[in-house]
């Protein structure tokens, strides 16, 4: 068997992953800071005004990354939860639990920045439009996942119940993403797509992509911090966790 494969699986154990995550966190923070400064610099200081929307359009440098991350984190969370459910991997279930609050935060920020964009542009904070409603459902799915898991005392049962909820909720993500195509919504179509060239100026696109990268790195850093706490809490009776605690960390 290839040696590298074995090495990768080694990190699938909470014991090996705990110190590894601790070493990775500062790097992701550094990347988040670099991308964030660059993205905000371009978005708020360099990018020209939008002809139709005026300066209020700059909210999209926060809104679009927050919305992307809220959907992407959900997919990653459901992936880890599903893996934990199917193969009983402890670490992947813990990763799913660690991602949920950050995903919920980004879903909230997506709705918040969207409302602040909607007021000057549409004249309303909120409409029951397909895009907005499905994003609100995403926030409720995150909250439901967190509430369900915290209501069950046995962590392994909580993992399984949460995984089923997470997997059922996956159906909502394509609904959010394609809602602007499937229904005639007030929300504008996507400015960036995988299949055609982006319908926005290059400077704006770069600002948005850099901000999205910053949010992504932030989400990884925060999820790793949270998963470390979860690992330590759940593994506190094991020998390695006791050794870790008495070694001073």
């Amino acid at each position, binding site marked *: 068997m290839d040696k590298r494969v074995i090495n990768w699986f080694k990190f699938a154990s909470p014991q090996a992953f705990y110190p590894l995550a601790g070493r990775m966190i500062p790097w992701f923070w550094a990347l988040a800071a670099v991308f964030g400064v660059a993205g905000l610099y371009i978005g708020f200081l360099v990018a*020209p005004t939008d002809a139709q929307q005026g300066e209020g359009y700059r909210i999209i440098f*926060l809104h679009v990354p927050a919305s992307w991350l809220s959907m992407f984190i959900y997919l990653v969370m459901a992936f880890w939860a599903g893996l934990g459910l199917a193969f009983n991997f402890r670490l992947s279930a813990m990763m799913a639990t660690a991602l949920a609050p950050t995903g919920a935060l980004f879903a909230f920020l997506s709705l918040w920045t969207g409302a602040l964009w909607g007021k000057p542009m549409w004249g309303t904070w909120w409409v029951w439009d397909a895009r907005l409603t499905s994003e609100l459902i995403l926030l409720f799915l995150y909250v439901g996942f967190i509430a369900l898991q915290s209501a069950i005392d046995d962590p392994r049962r909580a993992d399984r119940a949460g995984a089923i909820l997470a997997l059922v909720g996956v159906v909502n993500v394509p609904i959010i993403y394609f809602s602007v195509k499937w229904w005639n919504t007030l929300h504008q179509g996507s400015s960036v797509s995988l299949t055609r060239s982006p319908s926005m100026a290059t400077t704006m696109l770069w600002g948005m992509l850099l901000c999205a990268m910053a949010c992504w790195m932030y989400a990884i850093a925060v999820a790793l911090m949270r998963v470390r706490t979860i690992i330590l809490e759940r593994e506190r009776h094991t020998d390695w966790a006791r050794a870790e605690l008495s070694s001073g960390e």
Partner: protein
Amino acid sequence: MYWSSFSEFLAMGNHGVYVWGSVIVMAIAMVVEPLLLIRGQKSLVARLKRQLRAESREKIVDQGAGRSTPFQG
């Protein structure tokens, strides 16, 4: 640089409230979340260390009292 003055930057073409309302809330969220996590990790480590110390003390007490069965944690 796109802006000609700082006040123009702050005004955001009469959209200042909306733009800065988004920026501030997002910034607060992305500062508070890691701070809460650091605090949570620290308090968990402190709690578990206390438990470990308490357990080892109980063990010593047990041995001192001459019990044959070790403490069942």
